């Protein structure tokens, strides 16, 4: 039952990631702008294709050990490409001109590259990246630490911008729907951050049975949170957005009167 819940949470997140990632890449094709290309690539590769491959390697019954190993390695590689796209997105969108932004970005990228290459070179056939029998290894831990840092940074930037946008909203210089987008993106980044924390804790406590079940439930719930917040961040229903913004405009004009 717990395993099914875990699978459902991750599958839900994976499906929403494919949907949102593809739509962002279609948008990027129209606008030819870097941020949407990066966001779309990141969501599609790490949350969509990379996760789908690791789920397949864990639960698909018909895969030979060689095929499962190939799926795991492909998942590690594609997910890392997705994470890197997110690192660039956070740096370019929020801290393009800050020296410290370049340093944090460089540090995260270096750790991710070393962790990924090391993981690909040392991972043995049969070692999974998902589920109770997942193996991280020291290179995997390095990669997860890099993600912790980058997703924590992304989360802090989103919530900080959300606070700024709320102040702009109060004087009529922002729309409610745009303000809430930063909130949902922050939730999404925080949920990812917590998943990495759970992975590290799992690795540290060497998979005690009860803790493994708890971490599966937490990861499943975070998967649902990720799916919901990701969708809300980018593709909230247009009718709802217009209604919210119209209410907001009315409230602003009432205040002005």
């Amino acid at each position: 039952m717990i395993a099914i819940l875990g699978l459902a949470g991750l599958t839900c997140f994976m499906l929403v990631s494919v949907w949102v990632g593809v739509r962002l890449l279609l948008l990027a094709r129209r606008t030819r702008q870097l941020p949407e290309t990066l966001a779309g690539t990141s969501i599609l590769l790490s949350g969509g294709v990379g996760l789908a491959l690791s789920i397949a390697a864990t639960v698909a019954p018909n895969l030979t050990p060689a095929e499962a190993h190939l799926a795991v390695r492909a998942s590690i590689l594609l997910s890392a490409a997705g994470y890197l796209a997110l690192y660039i997105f956070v740096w370019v969108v929020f801290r393009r001109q800050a020296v410290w932004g370049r340093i944090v970005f460089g540090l995260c990228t270096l750790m991710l590259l070393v962790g990924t290459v090391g993981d690909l070179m040392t991972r043995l056939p049969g070692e999974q990246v998902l589920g109770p029998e997942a193996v991280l290894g020291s290179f995997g831990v390095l990669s997860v630490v890099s993600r912790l840092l980058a997703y924590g940074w992304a989360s802090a930037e989103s919530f900080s911008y959300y606070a700024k946008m709320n102040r702009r909203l109060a004087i009529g210089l922002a729309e409610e729907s745009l303000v809430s987008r930063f909130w949902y993106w922050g939730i999404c980044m925080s949920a990812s951050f917590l998943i990495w924390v759970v992975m590290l804790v799992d690795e540290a406590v060497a998979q005690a049975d009860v803790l493994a079940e708890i971490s599966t439930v937490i990861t499943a719930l975070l998967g649902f949170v990720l799916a919901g917040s990701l969708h809300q961040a980018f593709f909230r229903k247009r009718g709802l957005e217009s209604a919210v913004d119209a209410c907001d405009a009315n409230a602003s004009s009432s205040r002005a009167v």
Partner: protein
Amino acid sequence: MSDSSVFDRVADALDEMTDLSRLESRGTLRIVLKKAGFEARSVSPSELAVVLQKLLPQELVARGIENSEQVSEALVSSLSEVASASEGQDTPDAVFRRLSS
């Protein structure tokens, strides 16, 4: 990190139009921008105009400046001639606005 040219220009104008020193003028503008959720380096002329209209008068009154409304209006008028590089810049809000289109 340098401030935007529009911020520098308005700060200089505030310095000239009031008894505030250069440092006080810049500090007052920074406080007003922070209250509105903006930064001196990235605020655009149109955003700054709204901030000046809505928040600057009360900050000037708090600093003992007479004619705070007129001073604010004069600063807003001076902005109409300013074209800033920050207008249309890829700020986080511009990016996130685009991402749901």
